[in-house]
């Protein structure tokens, strides 16, 4: 219909109204073709606007002296005051150090475990046994953090299972959960226990994608098991390893609060308090909304920047994340 009206009076239209009417007709055609798709997408878009983009707008209270009575808009601006206060507070370096160190420990000790596990699993000759091991080791991934932490607290209690065992070997009992020196070990160690099986999935898939003819060729060349692993298997999963490592490094400044706020106590804050838990305490327990939003924003910006940098890096290796 629109096309017809253009043909009837072509001379009278300016370029501008031509463009507009083409746009209008395209819009109408798109709507006719995809109206149900837009109908489906509308609650999805609404969800993202309300629960993701509205909080992004709410982040401006980091630059205001927010009080709930005034609301976000009417609260007075304070510029970067909260950021300055945070940078000058004596918690600043402790939080940065704890957040970073937990991640560094996890990259050094936690990152290689699923890879080694997948490689060893791949060497098993019985497929049935392999599936068994997989099924069992995926399981802890699905256990709630509350249950996992309560088992940690129980087994590591002063007269818990681990200390009982230590005493059998003549070692005096260790107050694991009260001693700041133990926190990172317990946190990262329990994380490895819970996640190594699940984390291996992606490497197992990479292993199964290696071209079997490569192994056959290697065998013809007289390669043994070790040589095949070194020259075929490991190069085959290396791209996946690099991608995962890059992704992991993008999160080097983020540690979630969910597990830590169940595990820590004031006696271990020296090593256990990280940026996200500090935000939780300052913001939701002490209701310093603006101050804690500023700290959270500072952390989000660092994480966002890291992700961008890390993707640059992975593009250079020929495997961009997006």
């Amino acid at each position, binding site marked *: 219909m629109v096309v017809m009206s253009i043909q009837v009076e072509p001379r009278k239209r300016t370029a501008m109204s031509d463009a507009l009417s083409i746009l209008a007709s395209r819009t109408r055609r798109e709507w006719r073709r*995809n109206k*149900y*798709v*837009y109908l*489906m997408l509308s*609650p*999805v878009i609404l*969800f*993202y606007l309300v*629960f*993701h*983009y*509205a*909080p*992004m707008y*709410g*982040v401006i*209270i980091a630059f205001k002296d927010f009080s709930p009575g005034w609301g976000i808009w009417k609260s007075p601006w304070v510029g970067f005051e909260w950021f300055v206060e945070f940078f000058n507070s004596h918690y600043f370096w402790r939080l940065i150090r704890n957040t970073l160190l937990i991640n560094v420990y996890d990259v050094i000790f936690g990152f290689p475990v699923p890879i080694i596990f997948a490689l*060893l699993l791949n*060497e*098993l*000759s019985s497929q049935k*046994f392999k599936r*068994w*091991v997989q099924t*069992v*080791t995926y*399981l*802890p991934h*699905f256990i*709630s*953090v*509350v*249950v996992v*932490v*309560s*088992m940690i*607290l*129980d087994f590591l*209690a002063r*007269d818990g*299972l681990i200390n*009982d065992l230590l005493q059998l070997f003549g070692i005096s009992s260790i107050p694991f*959960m009260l001693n700041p020196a133990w926190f990172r070990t317990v946190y990262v160690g329990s994380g490895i*226990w819970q996640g190594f*099986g699940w984390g291996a999935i*992606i490497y*197992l*898939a990479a292993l199964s994608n290696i071209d079997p003819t490569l192994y056959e060729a290697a065998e013809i060349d007289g390669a043994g098991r070790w040589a095949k692993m070194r020259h075929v298997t490991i190069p085959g999963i290396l791209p996946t390893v690099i991608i995962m490592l890059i992704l992991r490094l993008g999160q080097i400044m983020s540690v979630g609060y969910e597990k830590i706020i*169940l595990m820590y*106590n004031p006696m271990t804050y020296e090593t256990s308090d990280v940026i996200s838990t500090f935000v939780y305490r300052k*913001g*939701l327990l002490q209701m310093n*909304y603006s101050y*804690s939003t500023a700290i*959270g*924003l500072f952390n*989000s910006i660092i994480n966002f920047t890291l*992700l961008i940098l890390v993707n640059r890096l992975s593009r250079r290796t020929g495997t961009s994340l*997006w």
Partner: protein
Amino acid sequence: MVARRLKRSVGERIFDNFNVLFMILLIVVTLYPFYYVTIASISDPTLIVQKRGIVLWPQGLSFESYRMVFENPMIRIGYMNTIFYVVVGTALNLVLTSFGAYGLSRRDLALRNPITLMIVFTMFFSGGLIPSYLLVRNLGLLNTRWAMILPGAISTWNLIIMRTAFLGIPESLAESAKIDGANDFTILFRIYLPLSLPVVAVMILFYAVGHWNAYFSALIYLRERALYPLQLVLREILIANSTESMMTSVVSDREPIGETIKYATIMVATLPILFVYPFLQKYFVKGVMIGAIKE
């Protein structure tokens, strides 16, 4: 295969045996905590507390702690609430996620790219904890069941997994259905979802386990105990008390019956997951891998 096995050198055989042994060790390390909790929960409270070191069998037999767990009204309330959050939450998750995934998989959708960008951006940047909390408060959702369901109605990661699965379905199917007069809702529910059952199974598992295990949103959004999910009740029984007693008591933090009640509580809260887990397990790899494939 047989020939190759015969050819294995001594070194290889030693490696293979050690490898199997190591895997068995890993299974033990993974399962023993659960096994310990299981046998401790049905043990006689006084006997299990006296027992030192590795426990292999139940010490005595007592179901007293289970009786006390089931008599605890908060456990019952928590259970019912969690079932509500899991069922309603997962249903909403599935509907919205498949709507979104279907939309983003339509190659002829004019606004596909901007909408995708808008959704994916939220994976990289978020307003953070406090603005999200204030939003939920301003919407009047504090202390309502909706606070447990709406803010996490879509997981972007799951949406992308599902979209990738949908992109693998030949577009000619949708086109011929359209010629036969089907609209997009029919195509989604009659063609796309049935063709992606493994992914749908994985979605159900991920979302349902997520709801079953969630405690943090309840911790910050719910004051009223009648709305508490099981995990928050667990936190009170298992962790809040234990941390408190750890800080105050000097000598012992294990009271016999309190201990076995803890174990029984863990069992009651974890058994449902242990039951459904083996049935859905075979879909994991597929679901996880689909998400890892880039378009």
